[in-house]
C-alpha cells in the first residue's frame, strides 16, 4: 500500500526565510523589528541630510594642512614629506621581500597604507599645489621600494638596520640643524603638530619602550633582589597611575631632576610616553616569557649554551613571537593616548582640531564646526586603528597562537 505523499518541506533557506525566522517570528518581534527599522532609517536620513546639505566641510578642507603638520613652515614641507617617502619606500621593501604568511600580512598593510596615501595624493594633486609633487614622489618611492625588493631580495638582511636608521634620518629631516634660513634651517618641535606629531610620539614611544620593556621583564625575573625589586617597583608604580598624571609629572618635575634645565615640551612628553609604555610592554613580555616551558631552557643548558645565549637564542624569540598581538594592541592604545599631550601644550591632531574649532571663520557657523571636525578626526583614528587591529588578528592566526 502506498503511503500518501508527504507535503514538501518548508523552505529553510533564502533571504525571506531568514527574515521570517530572525526578525518576524511572532508579533512582538515584528513590532520591535519595525520600530527599529523606522529609527534606523530616520537617523540615517537625518545624518545624510546634515552631511550633504548642512555640514561645512570647506573649513575642514581649508585646514587640512594644520591637521597634517600644524605650524611646520610651508616652504619646508618637503622635509617631513621626504620622511613619508622614506617610510613608504622601506615599507615597500619590506612588503616586497616578505615571504609566506607574515609576508602576506605586511603586503596587505602596505597595500592599505598606499591606498590611503594615494587618496591624499589625488586630493593634493587637484587642491593643494604646495604638496602636490611631494605626495606623488612619496607614492613613487613606495612603488620603487616594492619593485626594488622584487629584483634584489637580499635586501631583507639589511631591513632592520634600515628601519632603525630611518628613525634618525626622519628626526634629522624634521628638526634640521641650527640656522635661521636655508633649506635645512632648524624647526623647533614646538612648530610640529597634527598627524605628524601623533605618529612621531606613538612610533618613537613604542620603538624605545620595546627594548626598555624587555629589559624590565627580564629584570623582574632576575635572581638578584636589587634588580628584581627595582623592576617590580617601577612597573607597579607606573601602571598605578594614568598616563595623564605621568605627562604632567614629566612636564613639571623632569626640569627639577635636571637641575633647572628645561628640555623641549616634546621631549618631556615623549619621555613620559616611553616610560609609561615600557611598563606595560614589560608585563606583556613577561607573559610571553612565562609561557615558554622550563624544558626549553634546560635543553639549552644541556647543549652547553650560556644563560645569556639561551635567553637570546631560545627563549626570547619564542616569547616575543607569542606576544606580538599584545604589542600591537599596546601600540593601538598608545596611538590614541597620544592625544593626551594636549594638556602639556603640544598640538597633536586632537589639539589642532580643538584649535580649528576656535578660528573666527568657524565661529560664524551656527553651532560651530566641532561635529565636522570630530567626524574627520574619528575617521582618521579609526582607519589606522582598525587596520592595525586587522593586521594583529591576521598575525595571531598566522602564528597559530590560539590553536597550539
Amino acid at each position, binding site marked *: 500500500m502506498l503511503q500518501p505523499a508527504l507535503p514538501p518541506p518548508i523552505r529553510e533557506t533564502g533571504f525571506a526565510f531568514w527574515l521570517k525566522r530572525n526578525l518576524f517570528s511572532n508579533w512582538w518581534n515584528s513590532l520591535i523589528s519595525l520600530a527599529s527599522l523606522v529609527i534606523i532609517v530616520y537617523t540615517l536620513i537625518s545624518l545624510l541630510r546634515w552631511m550633504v546639505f548642512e555640514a561645512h566641510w570647506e573649513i575642514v578642507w581649508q585646514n587640512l594642512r594644520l591637521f597634517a603638520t*600644524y605650524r611646520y613652515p610651508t616652504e619646508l614641507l618637503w622635509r617631513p614629506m621626504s620622511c613619508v617617502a622614506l617610510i613608504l619606500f622601506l615599507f615597500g621593501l619590506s612588503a616586497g621581500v616578505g615571504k609566506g604568511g607574515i609576508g602576506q600580512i605586511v603586503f596587505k598593510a602596505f597595500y592599505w597604507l598606499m591606498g590611503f596615501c594615494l587618496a591624499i595624493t589625488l586630493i593634493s594633486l587637484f587642491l593643494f599645489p604646495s604638496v602636490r609633487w611631494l605626495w606623488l614622489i612619496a607614492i613613487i618611492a613606495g612603488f620603487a621600494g616594492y619593485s626594488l625588493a622584487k629584483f634584489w631580495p637580499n635586501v631583507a638582511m639589511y631591513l632592520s638596520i634600515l628601519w632603525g636608521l630611518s628613525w634618525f634620518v626622519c628626526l634629522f629631516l624634521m628638526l634640521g640643524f641650527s640656522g635661521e634660513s636655508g633649506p635645512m634651517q632648524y624647526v623647533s618641535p614646538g612648530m610640529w603638530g597634527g598627524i605628524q606629531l601623533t605618529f612621531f610620539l606613538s612610533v618613537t614611544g613604542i620603538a624605545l619602550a620595546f627594548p626598555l620593556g624587555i629589559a624590565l621583564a627580564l629584570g623582574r625575573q632576575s635572581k638578584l633582589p636589587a634588580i628584581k625589586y627595582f623592576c617590580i617597583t617601577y612597573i607597579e608604580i607606573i601602571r598605578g597611575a594614568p598616563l595623564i598624571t605621568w605627562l604632567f609629572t614629566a612636564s613639571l618635575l623632569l*626640569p627639577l631632576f635636571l637641575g633647572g634645565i628645561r628640555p623641549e615640551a616634546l621631549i618631556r612628553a615623549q619621555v613620559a610616553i616611553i616610560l609609561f609604555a615600557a611598563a606595560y610592554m614589560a608585563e606583556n613580555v613577561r607573559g610571553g616569557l612565562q609561557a615558554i616551558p622550563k624544558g626549553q631552557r634546560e635543553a639549552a643548558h644541556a647543549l652547553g649554551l650560556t644563560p645569556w645565549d639561551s635567553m637570546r637564542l631560545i627563549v626570547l624569540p619564542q616569547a616575543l613571537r607569542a606576544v606580538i598581538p599584545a604589542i600591537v594592541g599596546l601600540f593601538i592604545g598608545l596611538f590614541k593616548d597620544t592625544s593626551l599631550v594636549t594638556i602639556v601644550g603640544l598640538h597633536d591632531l586632537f589639539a589642532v582640531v580643538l584649535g580649528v574649532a576656535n578660528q573666527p571663520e568657524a*565661529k560664524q557657523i551656527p553651532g560651530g564646526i566641532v561635529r565636522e571636525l570630530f567626524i574627520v578626526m574619528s575617521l582618521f583614528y579609526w582607519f589606522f586603528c582598525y587596520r592595525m587591529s586587522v593586521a594583529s588578528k591576521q598575525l595571531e592566526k598566522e602564528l597559530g597562537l590560539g590553536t597550539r
Partner: protein
Amino acid sequence: MRKLFVLLASLTLVLSATAFAQSTLDQIKSRGSLICGVNGTGLPGFAYVDSDGNYQGFDVDYCRAVAAAVLGDATKVTYRGLSSGERFTALQTGEVDILIRNTTWTSSRDTGLGLNFTAPTFYDGQGFMVRAASGIETLADLDGTTICVQSGTTTELNLADVMNANGLDYDAKIAETSDPLLAAYDDGACDAYTTDKSGLAAQRTQLRDPSEHVIMDVTISKEPLGPSVRHGDDQFYDVANWVVFTTFMAEEMGITSANVDEMLVGSADSNVRRLLGVEPEKVEEFGLSADAFYNVIKQVGNYAEIYNRNLGPETVVNIPRGYNASYLNGGLHYAPPLR
C-alpha cells in the same frame, strides 16, 4: 662613574645658575626671539592659528609688540601654545618670557604665583545673553529663569554669588564645554547664557539667528586681562608695561602705523618726539634702542588699530569698545606720562 656623575651634576647646576643670572631682556636679545605664551587651543579674537599656520589675535599682537620693542622686529616671536593648567608653571620656570594668554589679574596670582601684571590690555567682565524678545533687561528680570553656565569655572561661582546676594532664584543648566551649552541655549533650553562678555560676543555669531539675541548691559564681575611676567625682573616688567602704555599713548596722540613716519620727522610735540625716540634718552633708559616704541607703532600699531583688527566691528567677534576705550573717550585705558 661616581666622579662623572658629580661632575655632570655640578655642571648642570652651574649652567642653570648662569641661565637664571642673565636678565630676561638679555636672554631675549641673545636668543634673537621672544618666547611668548599664548592660548594653545585658541580663543576667537585673542589667539588662534589660522589655516596658514600663523598665530593671529589681540594677545598675539601684544607678543609682536614686545618683540618689536626689544628686538626691533615684530616677527621674531616664538609662540608657545599653553593650556590653562600649565600656563603659570611655564612662566615661573622660564619656559616663556611673557604670558599673554587671556589671563585675569587677581591678587593671588600677583602674590602666590609670583606674577607681575602689566596694565590690563582688555577689561572683560561676566555678562548675560538673552533673547531680545524676552524683555529681560536687568538682573532682577532674571529671577526664576534658567541660566546656561559652564561648570567648574569662576563664571559659575560668580553667578551663584551675585544671584544669592540679590535674593534671586534661578535654575542653572550646566555643561563642561561651551559648544553644547550654547546649542542648548539656542534650542531654548535656557532663558539666558552667561560667560565673559568677550566670549558672549564671539559665541553669539554661532547662533542660528544672532540678531534675535542681545548682550545685556549688566556686568557682574571684573576680569582685567593683560600680559604678565615673572617676579624679580623689574627691568623686563617695565619694558612690558610700557609697551602696553605705548599703544595707549599712540592712540591718545593720534599716531598710527600709517602716519608714524610723518610724525617722526614732522612733529614738534615733545611728547611725540620722546615716544618715537627723536629725543632718545627716555626710551633708552629702559635698556632699549631709541626706536623701540617707534617700532611697536610702525609694525603693530596703536591700541585702536590692534583692537579693531582683532575685536572691532569689522571682525567676527565684534565687541563694542566699552571700558576698553581710551580715557579721552570715557574708557579706562590711560597711560602715565613718558618723561
